[in-house]
């Protein structure tokens, strides 16, 4: 063969693999509003940056007549590329090839690119679209999953790991996304569950659709398994690309800095918060009045909305925000919001992202359901995560900082670097109403007009304790600031803590209450 013929032969072979499961299977895929595996990768990475590996890998199944079957690339595409110039490793399961089922070689391709990502210290993106284990390969496919989960765990906190669910992801397969940092789902396309509707119906008699059991909205809203929810694959890819701009390549780096920008003029920080502490407002307005260009990249927007988490930039650098949301459930802490915030705090800490905490919360959500759901151990996660974090930690108390919530929301006592309070802040063991009822119980009960006495005592307590000055007098608050100074002071605090270096006691690992 001449060189030219060799090249033509190579091209033919590659084209053959690129056809995936063939026209019919691709047609089916497209009819569901789905792109193919390679189209998805190309839509995420920079144009012309993708290189695919292991195209000619063949499956090794021999039982059940699998020996005669040719599976293009064994149903998964792996490779490297860049997103806005940042290097990434990526894999995408190809549903058109044998339902994207995971056999031994399929798994080996995935673990190969995972090893590569960890070795090169670059982010890993996994696109899941698979019917599950390839039953014909038996225990070999289970081995494959195990190897993937192990690498997910090993890479955790070293490189960012992103999972994109663009099809079914069922049974054991769900545990790879669950072990990664961020999970993206798309309405009507993503399906995640341990046990599918058919089995649930036959065993338990419960009739439920796939979408209602483990659709995108369920995981974004109810289970908290998903971090980003999109209405189409295109929107999802934009979210992934945006996320990549906020996070570093690995745990020894800082996220890329952007040119600083002032917040937009329409966000007037002093006009957002109502004077009455019992009235709600949207805490995200405050965040946007502080961040560069008023941009806030919210994470887990639909889950436990009583706490808000996400990234913004301050003077061009990425900062993680944790903020109570008075608009939903009065901004209380509960099981879900504690889980949500704690995981995010740990993410920021692992990847050198400073944390700004905005506090306005009346306490923990009362209720038997919360107590029985374990609000003690869930709530403890926030305390643990803040205490453990060694990145710069800055708190701004906007209004209410009552009781255990005051301690939990990155207080001085958990080693916050800076604690600021607005003059509207109320830092107290509990709200005036509750405190007056306890402290002045006797006076109220014995008064000629108990209700009038109650109101009088509430006012007394309010005047004395519902302010930031008692805490400031003890040094628990570093400075009481005017709302319009917030950004300036935060920028200063971030600048001062840029080279923060503290050592925690050496240990194998801590034991957070999970």
């Amino acid at each position, binding site marked *: 063969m001449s060189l030219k013929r060799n090249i033509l032969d190579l091209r033919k072979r590659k084209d053959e693999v690129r056809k995936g499961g063939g026209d019919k299977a691709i047609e089916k895929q497209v009819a569901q509003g789905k792109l193919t595996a390679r189209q998805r990768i190309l839509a995420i990475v920079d144009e012309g940056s993708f290189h695919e590996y292991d195209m000619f890998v063949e499956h090794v199944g021999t039982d059940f007549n699998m020996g005669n079957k040719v599976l293009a690339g064994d149903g998964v595409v792996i490779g490297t590329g860049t997103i806005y110039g940042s290097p990434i490793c990526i894999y995408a399961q190809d549903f058109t090839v044998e339902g994207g089922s995971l056999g031994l070689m399929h798994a080996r391709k995935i673990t190969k690119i995972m090893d590569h990502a960890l070795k090169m210290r670059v982010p890993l993106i996994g696109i899941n679209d698979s019917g599950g284990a390839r039953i014909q390969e038996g225990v070999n496919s289970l081995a494959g999953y195990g190897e993937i989960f192990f690498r997910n765990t090993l890479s955790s906190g070293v490189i960012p790991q992103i999972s994109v669910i663009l099809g079914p992801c069922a049974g054991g397969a769900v545990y790879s996304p669950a072990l990664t940092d961020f999970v993206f789902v798309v309405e009507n396309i993503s399906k995640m569950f341990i046990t599918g509707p058919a089995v649930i119906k036959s065993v338990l008699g419960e009739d439920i659709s796939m979408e209602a059991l483990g659709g995108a909205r369920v995981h974004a809203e109810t289970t908290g398994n998903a971090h980003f929810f999109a209405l189409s694959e295109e929107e999802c890819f934009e979210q992934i690309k945006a996320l990549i701009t906020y996070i570093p390549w690995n745990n020894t780096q800082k996220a890329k800095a952007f040119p600083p920008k002032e917040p937009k003029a329409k966000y007037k920080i002093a006009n957002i918060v109502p004077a009455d502490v019992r009235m709600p407002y949207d805490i995200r307005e405050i965040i946007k009045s502080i961040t560069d260009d008023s941009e806030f990249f919210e994470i887990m927007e639909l889950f436990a909305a*009583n706490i808000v988490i996400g990234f913004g930039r301050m003077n061009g650098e990425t900062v993680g925000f944790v903020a109570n949301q008075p608009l939903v459930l009065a901004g209380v802490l509960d099981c879900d919001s504690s889980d949500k915030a704690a995981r995010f705090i740990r993410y920021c800490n692992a990847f050198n992202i400073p944390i700004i905490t905005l506090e306005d919360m*009346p306490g923990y959500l009362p209720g038997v359901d919360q107590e029985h759901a374990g609000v003690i151990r869930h709530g403890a996660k926030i305390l643990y995560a803040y205490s453990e974090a060694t990145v710069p930690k800055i708190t701004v108390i906007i209004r209410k900082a009552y009781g255990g919530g005051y301690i939990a929301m990155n207080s001085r006592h958990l080693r916050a670097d800076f604690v600021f309070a607005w003059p509207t802040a109320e830092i107290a063991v509990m*709200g005036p109403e509750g405190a007056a009822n306890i402290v002045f119980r006797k006076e109220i009960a014995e008064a000629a007009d108990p209700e009038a006495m109650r109101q009088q005592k509430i006012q007394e307590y309010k005047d004395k304790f519902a302010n930031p000055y008692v805490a400031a007098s003890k040094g628990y608050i570093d400075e009481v600031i005017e709302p319009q100074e917030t950004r300036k002071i935060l920028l200063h605090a971030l600048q001062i803590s840029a080279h923060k270096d503290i050592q925690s006691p050496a240990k194998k690992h801590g034991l957070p209450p999970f």
Partner: protein
Amino acid sequence: MEDQEKNQVIIVHSAKYQTTYNKKYLNRKVWEEPNFNLIKSYIPGTIIDILVKEGQVLNGGDSIIVLEAMKMYNDVQMPFKGKIVKINIEKGQKIPKGFEMIEIEPVK
């Protein structure tokens, strides 16, 4: 309580906060005092066998029902010494989770 739901108010330490509820909060289970005299199914399944009759007195730990669930025969036992007051199930019946299968009363 109903007033609270309508106005979307959360009460913490006697203070009422105006806010909005999320779906999960609205769907939360309201706690009920458990009634130990009701033998409820802890898993959905099929009644394979009923080993007792109404009026019968049994000791705690005695088998009363065989409930098939998750491809397993589950032995449902008397929680304490007591009398079978009423049987609400039949052999072969498929039951959901939390179904009140048998009513009992304690015997000293």
